[in-house]
């Protein structure tokens, strides 16, 4: 048994597949690809397949790491080739690598957010991002109960840039990601909408990369 890290790009209408959908989808792709999966040896044998960080529904991605356990010694390039021939529309395997970091080490994710333009968009967004105060409501857990928590998205941000392009306003931003602290791009948009007083409508949100605590790339 060996573990490989599959890097997946998710584009176009595949973005409407949820985290659970993706697990089923990958499992079937691996089966179609004729790749020999390692199965657990318990009463109900099942394969091991783990996504490093769930991707919110509606977000595209260039970099979803999925760890899979395989039998045999098929070269990574062959695993990659076979998987790509079995993937549905919108899903592409960009690489298959030996895992270095642990999924728990993910601290940040970098996003590109493309918005429909509105009057004074760039200045208003910049001002809001610079203000250091972006309150938002987030559902969290207190024990087993679901509770609404007040958070400040400004405290969960890294570097950012805002620019105007043809028919859209683009935000590039680094947000906290992972099991300890996590801010989804939609949480940011909610907070920005509230502060600016205008409903920010997105054309496209893409996760561009995952980063460690020291801002180095997660591999």
């Amino acid at each position, binding site marked *: 048994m060996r573990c490989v890290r599959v890097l997946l790009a998710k584009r176009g*209408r595949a973005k409407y597949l*949820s985290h659970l959908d993706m697990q089923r*989808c990958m*499992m079937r*792709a691996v089966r179609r690809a004729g790749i020999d999966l390692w199965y657990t040896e318990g009463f109900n044998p099942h394969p091991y397949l783990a996504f490093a960080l769930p991707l919110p529904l509606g977000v595209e991605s260039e970099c979803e790491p999925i760890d899979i356990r395989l039998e045999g010694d098929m070269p990574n390039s062959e695993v990659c080739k076979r998987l790509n021939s079995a993937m549905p529309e919108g899903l592409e395997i960009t690489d298959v690598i030996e895992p270095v970091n642990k999924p728990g080490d993910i601290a940040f994710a970098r996003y590109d957010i493309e918005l429909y333009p509105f009057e004074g968009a760039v200045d208003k967004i910049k001002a809001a991002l610079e203000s250091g105060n972006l309150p938002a409501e987030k559902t969290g857990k207190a024990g087993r109960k679901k509770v609404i928590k007040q958070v400040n998205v400004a405290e969960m941000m890294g570097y950012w840039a805002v620019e105007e392009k043809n028919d859209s306003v683009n935000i590039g931003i680094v947000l906290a990601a992972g099991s300890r602290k996590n801010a989804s791009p939609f949480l940011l948009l909610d907070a920005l909408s509230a502060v600016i007083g205008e409903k920010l409508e997105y054309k496209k949100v893409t996760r561009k990369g995952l980063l460690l605590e020291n801002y180095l790339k997660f591999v």
Partner: protein
Amino acid sequence: MLSEKLERILPLVQKPGRYTGGELNSVIKNKENVAIRYAFCFPDTYEIGMSHLGIKILCSVVNAREDAWCERVFAPWVDMEEKMRENGVLLYALESGDPIKDFDIIGFTLQYEMSYSNVLNMLDLAGLPVRSKDRKDLAPLVIAGGPCVCNAEPMANFFDIMLLGEGEEVTNDLIDLLKIHKARGSTKQEFLLEAAKIKGVYVPSLYEIEYNEDNTVKAINPMGTAPQRVEKRIVSDLDRVHFPDKFIVPGVEIVHDRAVAEIFRGCIRGCRFCQAGYIYRPIREKQADTVNRDCKALCESTGYDEVSLCSLSTSDYTHLEELLNKLLDWTVEDKVNIALPSLRADNFSKELSQRLASVRRSGLTFAPEAGTQRMRDVINKNITEEEILSAARKAFDAGWTSVKLYFMLGLPTETDEDIVAIAQLAQKVVDEFYRNPNKPKGKGVNVSISVAPFVPKPFTPFQWEGQNTKEELLRKQQLIISSLTSRKISLTRHNTDMSFLEGVFARGDRRLGDVIETAWKKGCKLDGWDECFRLDDWMQSFSDCGIDPEFYARRERSLDEVLPWDHLDYGVSKAHFIREYNKAHNNETTPHCREKCAGCGANKLNGGKCDALRESASCQKGQG
């Protein structure tokens, strides 16, 4: 690709993956290169429709042709419909995203009566008039198929054509004819008159219905060249019929998310309440090699880890042993689970139970249907209490700890004794578990009983029977509850209001079309869903149209009454139904078709052949 309009809506609705298309194995063609565009509509949600085998077979049949492109359409959930209407998005086909109003054929499958209002809603969402007579052009032609068209008279005003029986061949015949008439520039009426000459094609508008003063049907008169009786189509040789080697693999989770292979059509049993047992006759089996090939191809092309065998009664398949041996040759190694639904308790063998348990254990369900032997004789279930208990014993012995039992309530001649016996039978199954010395340690048993109200259906020996009232059914449900003696037994009840409406439409006539349209205009849709079902609006619609629903549901018909479906011929003769009706009322059973041919007459559809009896000569000629 998705339109910008759609992209702006999708983030606002639940499970948007249902509305995007783009699933693995969906068929994309160049629309410039096809003559006929076919929208195959399932009048319920994506999760339900995508689980249906018929849509997979028929889309694949059409797409096997170079000159036609078949795409899928499902009913949007309430939130999506609202957004579509708000933003002017017309109902579109999933593969191309094109509005279906521009297609040549819009085909609905009618699987259950509670989906009727969805048909109207989908036509309206497509931007089309719901009534056939208001759609003047040849295209789009709105057609229907599926089990309900054996009496879809309540829907007769909305469809241009109904296809009776199996669709694999008649769909092609219809497309061929439409191609000719489209090229010729024929009118809709010219085309319909020609189409009515194809076997299995029923054009409702070519039949005029006369009524008696007591509201029963007086006569059904064909007009012009339309045939007196429309005979359903069947496929003669199932080993040669088209079966898909690929299924579309949905991204979002659906109800039955697995590969499915058909093993035979028809049923040898003759349970008197069961419409499917009669309308799919005569019995035709597939060879084990064919089924094994189908299963293997599907698992390879989809990546599914479960394959299910589809028929009305899996354990009646004569090649089951051979098939399971062939399947287990590769499924164990490939970690593919085999699901065998529709098992009968009387031929559930120990070997079978062990086979099933060899890959992964799923639930086990038996359908005694009734509590006492007398009641089971009336419905011709031909299964004894000892057989049920013995099947439970074998299941528990093989390690199962939960068993599901299906029953019906409100059957003809039913007494309170029969109802109390349902609870008693469930208790006896619980007792079997504790009597078993090999029962798994530290585990309890769970027997769940599901009790559905009996709904009399056309083309069954009970088609003349009255349905129980809601009050009767609720009292009977309470009687079961008060008769339950163990916490190991759980009870699932069905919505009696829904069964009532189902009963009205199952044996309804054309006049109910107005009621369906009125109710739909009041906002009735997705009636099969408890959260959407609105009985009050339906009852108001009956009264608005001056129609008494009890007339259809409650009334016992006399055997010589003209039934609204008498002009439709599903092979089984009325004489056979009358014989079975009389036997039911004398508590007499009829042996299954392999024991003795009962002369139902359905073999006439297959040139006298019937797989229930290998030598066709030994099968009696239809007696009716």
